[in-house]
């Protein structure tokens, strides 16, 4: 059965090719169902292949074909619990989102192409997750970037969408450069890119300096893909894409690639405590920073975008603390509740005929009950309310930060403050959208979504509620499950016993404060006007985009202009033209010899022969 692992990637890839080429002929709902089927089948196969891991099975390597054996890069896969978990998340949540899109994208004239790109994404993400060497992982890494670009700028006739796609790709490129440099360093140190060899020999081969260099470069790649400071700027703009895209790529799966990568390469990161500290700090700061930005947004999707950046900050902080299980746990719970939040938001947007401004919503719970209930469950989960999944995973991370002690306690404090702010802005979102007086125009008629859209919501809500119970401090199910993948790494865990419950109570108290503050501000009577000062700055993203524009983009543009207009036109073209002119000048000067008179030619001949005779005689020593 394991030999069919390659089907997991081949099926969606085939779907992508078929839908891109023959999409028009396959037509509307069929292409959607076909694409969904090509994700559901891999999900089922993955489930079947994961069951053995609950029975203490060993990780397996599946070799498909050799690619560049010299550098240890082959098309071969590593099937271990971590990969299995990621695969299940990608295909499971992915198939739900595919089914949701059947209804959401109805009426779009590039409908089949959309599903082709979605399938391409699934195939690429699975390549990334299943790879057993850095080269194949990088292939997957780049392909998900490509799919992200294609899907963000899906409605490319809108200039803002096209620009957003470009921005995502270019900012990611900076991260990818870091990743590639890291890869080169790994190859320089180990002579191969195969995971097995690299992780086994990491301790003996790498010096601390080399390990720090490699991990810093890899982390740069992670900041690009997982939208951390300073390369997060593409994620809010990526909301230009259709909502299922935001749900799948920019919430549940692609952005988690950075977290997965760090978890996977933990054997190298372990050797570089400096990098780990940087990772944890960046994660914590990003979480806080993004949370403050989320408070001031008016667009429902942008709140969720900043929320994603913030939650990713939690995950990055976790892997920076070497609390790998906690990070992966939060990755899983986040996938469920964030996908649910986005899909529900999509349902709302769909109902409001593409209106995304929360200030024009209000009181929708009467019109969209299913959406409301499922979104409320997600709201409670992300805020970290007991006993939903977000509570368990977030507190696992905070507990690990606290347990690490020393100055890491500051990170714990940052995490708690961020949790407060998270509760606040999520409650704000729920209240503004579903409660209060209706503030929309008279020509909008909100209605509940069709069942292709609501059933995925219900399924996701179920998992959001219960999945957390897999890894409670009492019964560390996930920890145990991931043992074969992380066994060799020295993980940090939340301290057991009284400490963890005390910390949990502190978190719950803080969250309650956040929810109550939001209720107090928005839930009773008149809504405050949020303009000027902080609110304007938040809408502008604190001016970071403008700053990047002035400091990085503008010099880049002027350099490019200089190169094109001056270097290319004057120097390069000038050199080439100069060569031509030089040849012509030489020819013109040689023209003098062509007099057309026989006698001058004769003179030349005789003069030349006199010269030859002289030379021969001199050489022969005649004089």
């Amino acid at each position, binding site marked *: 059965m394991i030999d069919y692992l390659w089907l997991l990637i081949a099926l969606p890839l085939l779907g992508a090719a078929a839908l891109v080429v023959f999409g028009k002929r396959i037509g509307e709902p069929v292409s959607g169902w076909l694409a969904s089927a090509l994700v559901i089948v891999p999900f089922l196969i993955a489930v079947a292949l994961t069951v053995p891991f609950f029975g203490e099975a060993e990780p397996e390597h599946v070799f498909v074909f050799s690619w560049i054996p010299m550098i240890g890069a082959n098309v071969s896969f590593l099937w271990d619990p971590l990969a299995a978990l990621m695969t299940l998340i990608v295909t499971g949540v992915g198939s739900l989102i595919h089914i949701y899109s059947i209804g959401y994208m109805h009426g779009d004239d590039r409908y089949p192409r959309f599903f082709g790109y979605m399938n391409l994404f699934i195939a690429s993400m699975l390549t990334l997750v299943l790879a057993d060497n850095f080269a194949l992982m990088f292939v997957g890494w780049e392909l998900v970037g490509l799919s992200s670009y294609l899907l963000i700028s899906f409605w490319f006739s809108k200039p803002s969408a096209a620009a957003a796609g470009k921005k995502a790709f270019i900012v990611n490129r900076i991260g990818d450069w870091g990743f590639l440099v890291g890869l080169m360093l790994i190859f320089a140190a180990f002579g191969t890119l195969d995971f097995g060899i690299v992780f086994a020999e990491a301790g003996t081969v790498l010096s601390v300096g080399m390990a720090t260099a490699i991990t810093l470069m890899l982390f740069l790649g992670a900041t690009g893909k997982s939208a951390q400071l300073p390369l997060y700027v593409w994620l809010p703009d990526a909301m230009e894409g259709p909502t299922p895209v935001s749900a799948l790529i920019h919430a549940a799966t692609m952005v988690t690639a950075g977290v997965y990568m760090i978890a996977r390469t933990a054997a190298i990161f372990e050797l570089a405590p400096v990098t780990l500290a940087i990772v944890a700090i960046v994660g914590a700061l990003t979480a806080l920073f993004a949370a403050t930005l989320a408070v001031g947004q008016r667009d429902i999707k942008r709140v969720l975008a900043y929320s994603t950046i913030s939650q990713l900050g939690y995950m990055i902080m976790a892997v920076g603390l070497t609390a790998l299980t906690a990070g992966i746990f939060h990755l899983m719970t986040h996938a469920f509740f964030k996908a649910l939040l986005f899909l529900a938001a999509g349902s709302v947007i769909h109902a409001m005929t593409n209106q995304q401004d929360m200030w024009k919503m209000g009181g929708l719970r009467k019109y969209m009950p299913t959406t409301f209930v499922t979104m409320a469950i997600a709201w409670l989960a992300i805020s970290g309310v007991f006993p939903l999944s977000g509570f368990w995973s977030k507190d696992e991370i905070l507990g690990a930060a606290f347990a690490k002690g020393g100055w890491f306690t500051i990170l714990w404090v940052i995490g708690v403050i961020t949790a407060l702010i998270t509760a606040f802005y999520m409650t704000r979102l729920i209240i503004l959208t579903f409660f209060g007086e209706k503030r929309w125009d008279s020509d909008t008629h909100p209605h509940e979504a069709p069942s292709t859209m609501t059933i995925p919501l219900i399924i996701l809500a179920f998992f959001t509620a219960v999945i957390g119970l897999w890894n409670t401090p009492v019964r560390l199910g996930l920890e145990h499950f991931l043992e074969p993948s992380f066994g060799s790494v020295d993980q940090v865990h939340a301290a057991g016993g009284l400490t963890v419950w005390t910390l949990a109570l502190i978190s719950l108290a803080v969250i309650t404060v956040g929810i109550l503050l939001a209720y107090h501000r928005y839930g009773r009577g008149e809504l405050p006007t949020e303009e000027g000062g902080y609110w304007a700055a938040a809408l502008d993203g604190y001016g970071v985009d403008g700053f990047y524009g002035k400091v990085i983009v503008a010099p880049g543009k002027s350099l490019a202009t200089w190169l094109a207009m001056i270097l290319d036109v004057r120097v390069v073209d000038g050199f080439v033209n100069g060569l031509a002119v030089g040849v012509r000048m030489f020819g013109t000067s040689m*023209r003098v010899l*062509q*007099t*057309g*008179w*026989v*006698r001058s030619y*004769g*003179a030349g001949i*005789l003069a030349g022969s006199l010269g030859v005779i002289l030379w021969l005689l001199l050489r022969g020593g005649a004089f």
Partner: protein
Amino acid sequence: MTVTIGWYMSLAAVLFSIGAAGVLMRRNALVMFMSIELMLNSVNLTFIAAGNELGLVEGQVAALFVMVVAAAEVTIGLAILVAVFRRRATANVDQLSELRG
């Protein structure tokens, strides 16, 4: 004093240079041709003198062949000259400069 081979060779050299000067200085095609004939004759003298000195008959054989070639060349050359004259009514080689670049 006797007439050594050096005398003949020197005379041949002088005749050769006079012929060369004639080729380069005169514009009349016929005179140019005749100068070339003079140069060929001086070479013949060289051959014969050397053959005589070495006691080989090959010197005279070579001179004979040079004479044959010169005769053939004169034939063709004069035929060309006549053809050119028919067209251009001039024997001035400086006016035949179409190949001027």
